[in-house]
């Protein structure tokens, strides 16, 4: 199990060609790897490329407008290179995704049972009755009460939390090795978020699937992830095990993010904010992309793009001034 990473992204680059000919760099040379059974948190603000990264892994980006380069190695396949038919066989089977919006991600014309059964039949074959039994079992695993009855309900009968459970059951239908969860809790209210996170932790322990959890919520990351990658403007700016990242952030952006979380144990009248705006990705700055907003900026920062440097065996930061301890007085 520990032989190599389950999935490895190398130099992943996604650009979108706009109608007016402008090219937007959505994801830029992203290197990532997730081991079997591990959970990676992919964190960043809206538009930083986290969702595009996940869609690239799933091969769901529109072919006409998105150009994807680099390599995505999943268990011996290069996902960017395999034929569409192979990719379809992998999707839903060994690679599965939980979407952000449970309210709109279920087809209103079918019962939830039909939608899960369809996936099982698609990848596992077998008879309808066996698939139905497995569907009931899956609904039970995601703690949907009386699944024998719920299985024949239409999505409009279910609440948001229930629908997200159904989405999770659907993603788990074929015991995927890799589960990509794109902000699975964003559309839910706080109490439900906690329940869904508990559920994901429980399922992870039971199934041993690797998870890529995409979120902008550092609280969620702290609860479920083993490792965190922080993205900013299409690049990974810092990567570290979760405890290390929270205790010892080594990129000014991460420091800013951590500083802007409200905390119960510290009294402050103002939350820290990160000044400024995300750079325009149709025309990214030459040097560090965070330089314009960075409190530690110096002349070297704007001259050339900083590399992602390893600070220790597991901790990488894309800041030429790291380690940052000596900068903070």
């Amino acid at each position, binding site marked *: 199990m520990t032989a190599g990473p389950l999935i490895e992204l190398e130099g992943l680059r996604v650009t979108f060609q706009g109608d007016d000919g402008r090219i937007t760099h959505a994801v830029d040379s992203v290197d990532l790897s997730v081991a079997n059974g591990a959970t990676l948190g992919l964190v960043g603000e809206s538009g930083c490329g986290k969702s595009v990264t996940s869609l690239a892994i799933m091969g769901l980006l529109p072919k006409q407008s998105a150009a994807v380069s680099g390599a995505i190695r999943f268990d011996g396949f290069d996902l960017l290179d395999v034929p569409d038919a192979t990719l379809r066989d*992998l999707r839903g089977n060994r690679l599965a995704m939980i979407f952000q919006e449970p309210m709109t*991600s279920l087809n*209103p*014309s079918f019962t939830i049972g039909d939608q899960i059964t*369809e996936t099982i039949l698609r990848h596992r074959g077998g008879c309808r009755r066996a698939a139905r039994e497995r569907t009931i079992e899956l609904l039970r695993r995601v703690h949907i009460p009386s699944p024998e009855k719920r299985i024949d309900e239409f999505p409009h009968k279910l609440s948001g939390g229930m629908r997200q459970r159904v989405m999770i059951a659907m993603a788990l239908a074929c015991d995927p090795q890799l589960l990509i969860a794109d902000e699975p809790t964003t559309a839910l209210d706080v109490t439900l978020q906690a329940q869904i996170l508990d559920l994901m932790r429980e399922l992870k322990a039971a199934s041993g699937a690797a998870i890529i959890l995409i979120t902008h919520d550092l609280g969620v990351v702290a609860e479920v992830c083993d490792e965190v990658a922080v993205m900013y403007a299409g690049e990974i700016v810092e990567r570290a095990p979760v405890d290390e990242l929270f205790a010892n952030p080594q990129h000014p952006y991460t420091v800013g993010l951590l500083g802007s979380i409200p905390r119960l144990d510290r009294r402050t009248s103002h939350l820290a904010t990160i000044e400024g705006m995300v750079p325009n990705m149709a025309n990214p700055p030459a040097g560090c992309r965070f330089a314009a907003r960075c409190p530690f900026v110096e002349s070297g920062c704007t001259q050339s793009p900083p590399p992602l440097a390893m600070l220790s065996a597991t901790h990488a930061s894309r800041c030429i001034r790291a380690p940052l301890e000596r900068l903070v007085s």
Partner: protein
Amino acid sequence: MTDTTLGTSASLAAAETLESPARRAWRRLIRRKGAVLGLVVTALFILLAVFAPLIVPYDPIATSWSLVRKAPSLQHWFGTDELGRDVLARVVFGARASLLAGVISVGIALAIGVPLGLLAGYRGGFIDGLISRITDAMLACPFLILAIALAAFLGPSLGNAMIAIGVSATPIFIRLTRGQVMSVKVEDYVEAARAMGNPRWRIALVHILPNILPALLVQATLSIAAAIIAEAALSFLGLGQQPPAPSWGSMLNAAQRFLTSAPWMAVWPGLAIFLVVLSFNLVGDGLRDALDPKAR
């Protein structure tokens, strides 16, 4: 929309009465007076057409020189026409031609229009451009004019009239299907279906098509009404049902020469067309309201 009390016994009781979207639409349809009226009248005409020989005692094409243009009477409730044929019998048998023409021509339009619309809307790009431009060209020509031209080209017969009307109604279905597909295909559940590894044809047929059926159903019902009028118009012009077989349109044509002396020859087929078209439109409007996802 119920909330988080889903585990309670009350909501479980509610879950016993599982309601599919189709059943819910039906329940909402029969709440509307107009739609029910339309359904009843439509059903009545369908029964008339199916059981025509059992309902009227007269042969619709049997002529009689002693009964030319007789006013309505106890023997001939709707009167007789210029060849002494019973008008009631001809109206009842004429329902067959009209309803058949309405249903079959819309069937033809659906059979051609929906696959092309799916293809155009789902694939996009060059195929979409090609199909859409042809559709635009066909829509530039008025529906009835196009149908008349096609019927004249194919030769006068009821079958050819159905083909002509069906082909003329096709562009509406292509455009409707295409637009609906384009709005449904960006829904999250279609993306989710792709993420589940479904091939493209399956997404189009299994995940998208059922969600656009309501719109197609409404359009088809309203189009049947338009097709019945078109059939009557073609028959009026001699391009549809051929004499002596009865058809409301050709009856009106025969009646126009005797409008003052034998008005009943025009009134009854005209009334029949009016009633059938009105009821199909009522049903169509009712369906549109009943299937509207925004109305609760």
